[in-house]
């Protein structure tokens, strides 16, 4: 399953300057692994040392935070859009 993955500015330098890439996988975790396989420089930014997502990374599947869906196990369908977004202080303060 090929899905589009939107990368935040700070990851683009590790992905040849691309803001959007294509990655394969049937779950969010598999797609993230494929991003790391294609662009190994993103690994330390995406993955926590003990596995799972880096604590300052939010992954959104069609604009829904996957931590509140099924986490890395969340299935992704054809045409899905994944956004990798760093956690920052919110704008509503």
């Amino acid at each position: 399953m090929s899905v589009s993955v939107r990368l935040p500015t700070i990851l683009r330098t590790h992905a040849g300057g691309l803001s959007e890439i294509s990655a394969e996988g049937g779950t969010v975790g598999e797609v993230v692994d494929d991003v790391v396989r294609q662009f190994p420089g993103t690994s330390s930014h995406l993955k926590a040392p003990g596995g799972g997502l880096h604590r300052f990374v939010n992954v959104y599947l069609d604009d829904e935070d996957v931590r509140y869906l099924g986490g890395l196990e969340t299935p992704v369908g054809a045409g899905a859009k994944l956004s990798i977004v760093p956690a920052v202080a919110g704008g509503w303060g």
Partner: protein
Amino acid sequence: MAPFDSVLDLIGNTPLVDISALSPKPSVRILAKLEGQNPGGSVKDRAAKAMIEEAEKEGRLGPGSVILESSSGNTGIALAMICRIRGYHLLVVLPENVSAERRQMLAVWGAEIISSPGAEGSNGALRAAQALAAEHPEWFFPYQYANPANPKAHYEGTGPEIWRDCPEITHFVAGLGTAGTLMGVGRFLKERNPAVQIWAVEPPSGETVDGLRNLDDGFVPPVFTDNDGPELLDRKMIVRARESIEWTRRLTDVGIFAGVSAGSAVAAAAKGAEQLDEGTLVALVADGGWKYLSTGAWTDDLDEVVERANRLIYF
């Protein structure tokens, strides 16, 4: 109604109004909690008052005290109003790309503005404030992102008000920000009825904030982690600028002139309503539209407003 002793006594007890006319499904009600009715103009009056009163109780503030806070606007404005009344001097670290009205409102109340780089967003303002606070331990730094008085104001105020006015609530929808509103209201409502769902809404700020040097500059509010945010929330979604502005405009159809974050919250509620068979969703309208007039959010071409929104902190 008996006269109030102080404007600060007008904070809270905001009205809840039925806006189901905007619901995509007649069987799903949507209500709006109008926080723009607070005297300082936003939901932030609640946390600001609670943080100041807590510090006063602890003896940390006295005549002429200096207070420092980082804010994208509303918290700064709320603190500025209270500091004016109480005689404290307020310094607000504000990203340079907020709407003009926010600076004007801070000036009205006599607060001093310290600008932080716009590209760094609220994250940059927070970092700058933390650095200044470390240099000046004699200043009081409420640090809204970590101050327990922030969620407490909502646990003791906003939450009980919603439960009193609408015990049939099934979903509460609000912007994440410091997480104070969601944690306080969420905890209160779940204690009353564990089935109530708590939904968080965020602008896609992490995508556009270019000031991050690396991910370790990222930030999750301590208010969120200290209150078991991941457990308390049932859903977290991004609402993009276009949809937020479209819904901010749609709110005027029911007579609500609100800020753009209200458009996001109501957009999320409407999206949720489409997916439900029945329910009663309460969306938090954090402020009125006044501070956004200069952005042309209601009147300019939608594409232009959206383009501008990606450069300006609208929320």
